[in-house]
C-alpha cells in the first residue's frame, strides 16, 4: 500500500482524526482547509450577518421601548385573490416555503457541481432562480397590498381617514371604543364613508364608489361592516420604516442573489467551470443564497411570528 492510498484510507475512516493529526498552524497550508474565495465569502457573510443583526436588534430595541406594538396576525392576514378574508400567516408561510425549497435546489446544484455534472448544475440552478423570482414576486405583492390598503383610522379622536402602511404611518394602532367610532363616522366626509362601505360592505352588491357617494351619510354608515373595517388608531410610526427597511434590505439580497445565480447559470452553460475543472463558484454563490434563506428565518421570526 502506497503512503498516498494509506492516507486516503485514514481520511475515509475518520476525517476528524486526520484533522487533529495535521499541524494546521505550521504554515504551508490553509489553517481552515478552505479555498481562499470560499473563506472570504464566509467572512463577508459574517459581516453581513452583523448588518442584518444590527437592523433587527435596533427594531427589537424600539419595540421593547413601546407599550403598544401591532399584532402581526392582524397586519399580515391577506392572501392574493381572497379579498378581505382573514388568513393570518398564510401568505408569509408560502413565501417561507418557496425560500426553503429554493435553498434545497441550490444545495442540489452544489452537489451536482461536486460530481462535475454540468446538466445537473444547470437544472438545479434554473429552479433556484425560479424560486428566487417567485419570492420577489410575493414580496412585491405584499408591499403593494400594505401600501395601497385603505384602512379606516381615527384621527385626532374625532374623524376617520383612510391610510395604508407607509414609512410615515400605519393603521395598526390601538382598538377604539365603538362609541367613539360611531361619533367619528358621523363627522367624516361622505367620500371616506363611501370608500369604507365599498371595501367593507355589510351586504354583498353595495355598488360602485361613485354610486355610494351619492347616498346620504346615515345610510352609508349603516352599510359598513364595522367588525371587518376594524377602525383603530394610528400605529407606532417606527413599524412601517422597520418593516420596509429590513424586508427591503433582505429583498435586495434576494434580488442580487438571483442576478448572481443567473450569471452562474450562464457561465455553467458556456462550460467555464468545466474548463476550470471545478465548480467552486457554484459553491460560493450557494453560500450566499443559503445566507439569504438564513436571514429570512430571522426576519420571519421578528416580523411575522412574535
Amino acid at each position: 500500500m502506497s503512503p498516498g492510498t494509506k492516507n486516503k484510507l485514514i481520511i475515509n475512516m475518520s476525517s476528524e482524526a486526520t484533522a487533529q493529526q495535521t499541524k494546521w498552524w505550521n504554515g504551508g497550508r490553509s489553517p481552515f482547509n478552505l479555498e481562499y474565495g470560499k473563506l472570504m465569502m464566509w467572512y463577508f457573510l459574517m459581516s453581513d450577518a452583523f448588518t442584518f443583526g444590527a437592523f433587527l436588534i435596533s427594531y427589537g430595541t424600539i419595540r421593547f421601548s413601546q407599550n403598544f406594538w401591532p399584532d402581526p396576525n392582524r397586519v399580515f392576514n391577506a392572501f392574493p385573490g381572497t379579498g378581505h378574508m382573514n388568513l393570518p400567516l398564510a401568505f408569509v408561510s408560502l413565501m417561507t416555503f418557496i425560500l426553503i425549497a429554493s435553498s434545497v435546489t441550490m444545495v442540489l446544484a452544489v452537489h451536482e457541481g461536486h460530481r462535475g455534472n454540468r446538466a445537473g448544475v444547470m437544472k438545479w440552478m434554473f429552479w433556484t432562480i425560479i424560486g428566487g423570482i417567485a419570492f420577489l414576486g410575493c414580496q412585491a405583492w405584499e408591499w403593494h397590498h400594505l401600501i395601497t390598503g385603505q384602512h379606516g383610522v381615527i384621527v385626532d379622536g374625532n374623524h376617520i381617514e383612510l391610510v395604508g402602511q407607509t414609512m410615515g404611518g400605519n393603521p395598526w394602532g390601538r382598538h377604539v371604543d365603538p362609541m367613539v367610532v360611531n361619533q367619528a363616522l358621523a363627522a367624516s366626509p361622505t367620500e371616506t364613508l363611501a370608500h369604507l362601505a365599498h371595501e367593507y360592505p355589510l351586504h354583498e352588491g353595495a355598488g360602485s364608489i361613485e354610486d355610494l357617494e351619492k347616498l346620504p351619510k346615515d345610510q352609508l354608515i349603516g352599510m359598513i361592516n364595522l367588525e371587518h373595517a376594524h377602525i383603530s388608531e394610528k400605529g407606532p410610526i417606527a413599524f412601517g420604516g422597520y418593516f420596509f427597511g429590513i424586508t427591503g434590505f433582505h429583498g435586495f439580497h434576494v434580488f442580487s442573489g438571483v442576478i448572481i445565480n443567473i450569471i452562474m447559470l450562464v457561465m455553467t452553460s458556456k462550460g467555464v467551470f468545466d474548463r476550470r475543472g471545478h465548480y467552486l463558484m457554484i459553491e460560493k454563490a450557494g453560500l450566499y443564497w443559503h445566507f439569504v434563506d438564513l436571514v429570512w428565518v430571522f426576519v420571519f421570526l421578528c416580523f411575522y411570528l412574535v
Partner: protein
Amino acid sequence: MEHQATTSEITFHHHVPGKENVKRIIKTLIILSIITAIELGLGYTIYLIHKNPDFSHGLVLGIKGVIVILSLAKAFYIVSIFMHLGDEIRNMIMTIVVPLMLFIWFIAAFLWDGNSYKNLRNNYDKHFQERTTEKHGGH
C-alpha cells in the same frame, strides 16, 4: 493544472458521498419544513389566545420563546448542512462561530435598554403611558 491551483489550500477533502448527501439534503428539507409548520402552528395559537381579552401574557411569552428556539434550530440546520459548515474542520467552524458570540451581548444589552427606556417613560410620563397602552375589552 488549474485544478491543482485550487486544491493547494485544501489539505484533504471530506465530501459526503453522492447518494448519502442527497439523502441528507432531503432529510434536512423535511426537518426544516416540520419546524416551520410547528412555528406557524404556534403563531396561530398566539392569534387564537389574543382573541380572549384577558389572555395570559406569560403563556404568550413562553410560546414566543419556543418559536425563537425553533428558529435557532432552523438556522443551525441551514448553516450546518446546506452551507456545509458542519463538514469543515474545527478551525474553520470556530473562525465563524466565535465572532458571532458577540450577538449574545448585542441582543441582551439592546433589548434591556429598550425595555428600560419604556419603564422610565411610563414612570415619569403618565400621559405617554395612557396614550400608548392598549385598553382592555375594547373590541
